[in-house]
C-alpha cells in the first residue's frame, strides 16, 4: 500500500512537469524512479521509454510500464491515473476559462514565455537521455541517422526505431 501511494505521488508530481511534452519531465523521472526509489535501473528506464515511442497513443504510456515493473497491474493503473489526473483537471478547468481570456493581456506572454522554457526543458531531457543511451560511437551514429532520416523524410518514426533495434542486435551478434 505504501508503495502504491509512492507510485501515485511520484507520477502525479511528474505529470505537472510535462510542459512541452513528456520529455521535459524525463530528468525528474530518472531521478525519482532510479536514484531516489530504486524501482528500476537507468538502462531499464531508457528501454521502457524507447519501447514507449513504438506504442500507439500519447508518447508517455511507458509510465504504466514503470508502475507494472514495480507493483504489477495495480501499479500500472495507479501510475497511469496519477499521471493523467492533475494535469487533466488543470486542462479541463483552464480549457473552460482560456477562451474567455482571449483578450487577457498576459495570455500571449504566458504562451510565448512558457513555449521557450518548454523547449529548454525538453532539450535538458534529451541531453540526459542521450548521456544514458549513446554510450558508444555506434549508438551515436544510430541516433544521428534516425534524426537525419526523420528530418528529411516523412517516414513513420516506428520504422527507423525498429531498424535501430535490429542494428543493435546485429552489432551484438557480430561482436
Amino acid at each position, binding site marked *: 500500500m505504501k508503495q502504491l501511494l509512492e507510485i501515485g505521488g511520484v507520477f502525479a508530481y511528474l505529470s505537472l512537469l510535462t510542459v512541452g511534452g513528456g520529455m521535459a519531465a524525463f*530528468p525528474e523521472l530518472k531521478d525519482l524512479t532510479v536514484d531516489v526509489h530504486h524501482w528500476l535501473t537507468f538502462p531499464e528506464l531508457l528501454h521502457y521509454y524507447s519501447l514507449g515511442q513504438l506504442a500507439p497513443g500519447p508518447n508517455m504510456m511507458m509510465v504504466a510500464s514503470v508502475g507494472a*515493473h514495480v507493483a504489477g497491474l495495480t501499479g500500472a493503473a495507479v501510475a497511469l491515473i496519477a499521471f493523467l489526473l492533475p494535469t*487533466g483537471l488543470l*486542462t479541463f478547468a483552464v480549457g473552460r476559462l482560456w477562451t474567455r481570456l482571449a483578450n487577457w493581456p498576459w495570455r500571449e506572454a504566458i504562451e*510565448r514565455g512558457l513555449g*521557450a522554457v518548454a523547449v529548454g526543458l*525538453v532539450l535538458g531531457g534529451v541531453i*540526459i537521455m542521450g548521456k544514458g*543511451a549513446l554510450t558508444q560511437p555506434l549508438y551515436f551514429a544510430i541516433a544521428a541517422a534516425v534524426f537525419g532520416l526523420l528530418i528529411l523524410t516523412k517516414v513513420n518514426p516506428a520504422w527507423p526505431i525498429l531498424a535501430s533495434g535490429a542494428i543493435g*542486435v546485429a552489432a551484438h551478434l557480430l561482436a
Partner: protein
Amino acid sequence: MNPSPTLWRVFWVFLVMGATSIGGGVVGYLRAGLVARERWIDDHAFVELLSISQTLPGLNATNMAILVGDRLRGAPGAVLAALGMCLPGASLMTAAAFAYGVGGDGPVVKAFLHGIAAGAVGLVTMVLVQLGAKTMRELADYGLAGAAAALVAFMGVPVPYALIGVGAVAIWWHGRRRRRNTAGK
C-alpha cells in the same frame, strides 16, 4: 459539424485514434480524426485547442482529448475521451513490462533495446527541433531555453525550480515587451 455524439461514440473514436496513432505525430492523427473524419470541430477550433494543450502541462494528445471531449459531452466526455486515447498504449506498455520481466535479461533482447534507445534519442531530437521551430522567434527565446536546459542537464537543478524560475523571467520578458509596444501606440 456534428457536435453531439453519444458518450460511447466519443470513447470509441478516441480509442481508435489511441490504438492507431503509431510512431508519434499524434497531432496529425487527431486532426484527421476530429476535423476531417468526424467533423466534431473545425480547423480554427482545432488550432485554438491545440495551443491550449501545448501551453499547459500534460501530454498534447491527452490534453486535446480532454478539451474536445468536454466540448462534445461535458465532463463525462472529457474523461472517456482521455481514457480511450490512453488505454491501448497503456495496455501494451503494461504487457511490455511483464514481457520484460520474463525475457528482458537476454543479451539479444538487451542489444535490441539498447539499439532502439539510440534510435529514440534521434526521434526526440527531431521532436525538439520541430517544437523549437514553432516557438523560437527571437534571441531572448534561445537564451531562456538555453538557461532552462543548462540548469536541468548540467547543474542538476530539479525541473520544477527551472520551470518556475526561468518561466517567471520568460513571462515577465514577453509581457514587458508587449506592454511597452501597447504604450508606444
